[in-house]
């Protein structure tokens, strides 16, 4: 028996990944802190799965360096057992029973918890005798979650693992993830389009857009930077002048504008005097505005530099 850290940090240094003519990741530099639950957000095709593939040594980057716990994961006997990448339903032995699959995975993962696997199998009502190829979409995803969480890998990447799961099962997954994370802290990267649902789990967030890093920030900080300003159109326009405007909606004479950037001293008072209402912006709305194609054309690099 040996001792090992339970959470591994991630560093990408000027990473580019190309598939022929398509650039999936473009000169990406970022850090994911060890021991955090980080949301990896982005629209379809933004490079999230490619990043997971690089971290799990499915691929080598075209350029740049990928470091997990300080070392490149590619063919690294020390690192790869501690990286678990589950995409959608995960990679499983389709023609073997779930029981055989678990036997295979548990033999390959040094920290695999049979106890947790058993609890999750019960939670998702999975029959060990069934084969993955015979399961419904949701049950397949549930099994991917069982493998991803029970592996207790130091770096666990869960990429759209909720696909096909009904709402109660998704919330059961979130609760199970949080409970096990609290008992066995590790680095978890969670990618999902259901930002409203996973928002409460996240400590940090990375937003990718067309292969570039748009935002990398702690969630509270990002949320605090988003402000909605509601009131008479002229007053709103005057208040947001010079600010980073993400979106504007108009209803009659009333305008609601979403801006990004911390309010300065006196802003709240000035807004009140102008008859404006200031409110928080949900993370999902911020994400939608930040990744709006009309807004982000080529802006990614600038924002990345400003964030970290």
């Amino acid at each position, binding site marked *: *028996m*040996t*001792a*090992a*850290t*339970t*959470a591994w940090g991630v560093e990408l240094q000027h990473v580019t990944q190309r598939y022929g003519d398509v650039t*999936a990741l473009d000169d990406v530099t970022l850090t994911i802190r060890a*021991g955090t639950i980080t949301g990896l957000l982005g629209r379809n095709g933004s490079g999230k*799965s*490619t990043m*997971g*593939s690089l971290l*799990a*040594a*499915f*691929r*080598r980057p075209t350029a740049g360096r990928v470091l997990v716990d300080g070392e490149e994961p590619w*063919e*690294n*006997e020390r690192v*790869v*057992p*501690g*990286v*678990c*990448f589950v*995409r*959608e*339903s*995960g*990679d*499983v*032995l*389709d*023609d073997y029973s779930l029981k055989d699959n678990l036997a*295979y*995975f548990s*033999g*390959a*993962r*040094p*920290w695999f918890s049979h106890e947790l696997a058993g609890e999750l199998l019960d939670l998702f009502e999975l029959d060990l005798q069934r084969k993955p190829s015979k399961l419904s979409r949701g049950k397949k995803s549930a099994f991917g979650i069982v493998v991803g969480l029970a*592996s207790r*890998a130091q770096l666990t990447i869960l990429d759209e693992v909720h696909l096909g799961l009904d709402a109660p099962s998704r919330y059961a997954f979130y609760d199970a993830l949080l409970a096990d994370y609290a008992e*066995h*802290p590790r680095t978890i990267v969670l990618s999902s389009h259901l930002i409203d649902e996973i928002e409460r789990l996240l400590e940090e967030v990375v937003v990718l857009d067309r292969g570039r890093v748009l935002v990398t920030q702690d969630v509270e900080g990002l949320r605090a930077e988003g402000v909605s300003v509601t009131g008479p159109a002229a007053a709103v326009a005057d208040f947001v002048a010079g600010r980073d405007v993400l979106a504007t909606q108009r209803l009659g004479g009333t305008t609601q504008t979403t801006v990004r950037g911390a309010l300065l001293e006196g802003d709240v008072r000035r807004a009140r005097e102008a008859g404006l209402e200031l409110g928080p912006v949900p993370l999902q709305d911020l994400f939608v505005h930040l990744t709006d194609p009309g807004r982000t054309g080529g802006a990614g690099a600038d924002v990345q530099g400003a964030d970290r």
Partner: protein
Amino acid sequence: MTTTVTTRPSPTAHTARRLGEALLTMAGVFWAIAVVAVVIATLVAWRVAGSVDVSIAVYARQAAIWFPFSLGILVVAAYLRVHIASGMTRRTFVRAALLVEVAAGVGYAAVFTAVALLERAIHDALGWESVMTEIQLADESTSAGVMLLELAVTFVVANLSGLLVGAVFHRYGAWGGMLSLPLTVGPLVLLLYIPGARFVDLPGIWTTTPAGHLALAVTVGTVLAGAMAAVFAAIVLRLQLPPAP
């Protein structure tokens, strides 16, 4: 933050056990069918001709080459991605796959030899001949050792050829896999016809002797097996897997 870590079995041994169990199951199915087929064919031939003076078992040789060959392709297609996704390296997959496929080749050769010898004993007891009509070195008078050696080399090359085809399809896609078949399967076909050299006499260069034929077949087979294993390893060790399953 630290925690205790349980030791895991060697990744090579872990995957070799999984692959070995899968191939063993399929081998059981194959040999059950093959033995039943040999018995039925022998009974039919006996009923029709009154005696069976050829080895029926030897006709299973082609099936015993190409069935495990196809399993070699499946080993790469079904297990490689799962192996890597389970936190193991390509290197350990290569070791496990080569180990299991070489063992499978020798195992098939051992079973085949045993079946052929058993059949020969039965034929002898019934006063029948056991003429072998396949293009191979072993004939009805060959010792078990020679037959085992020749078959083992052939079956191992067939299995490694299957692995190579699987790896090439994985790496270069359907078109690349199809177009490279002459290179990936060609060596096996070449080996199958090496025994034909016994029909050729080149005065001063090559004289037909049983020991010479065997040495030629084993040498060529061993060189081909080594080359195929090396190319298979080189392809898999560089293999980039697509992000989506």
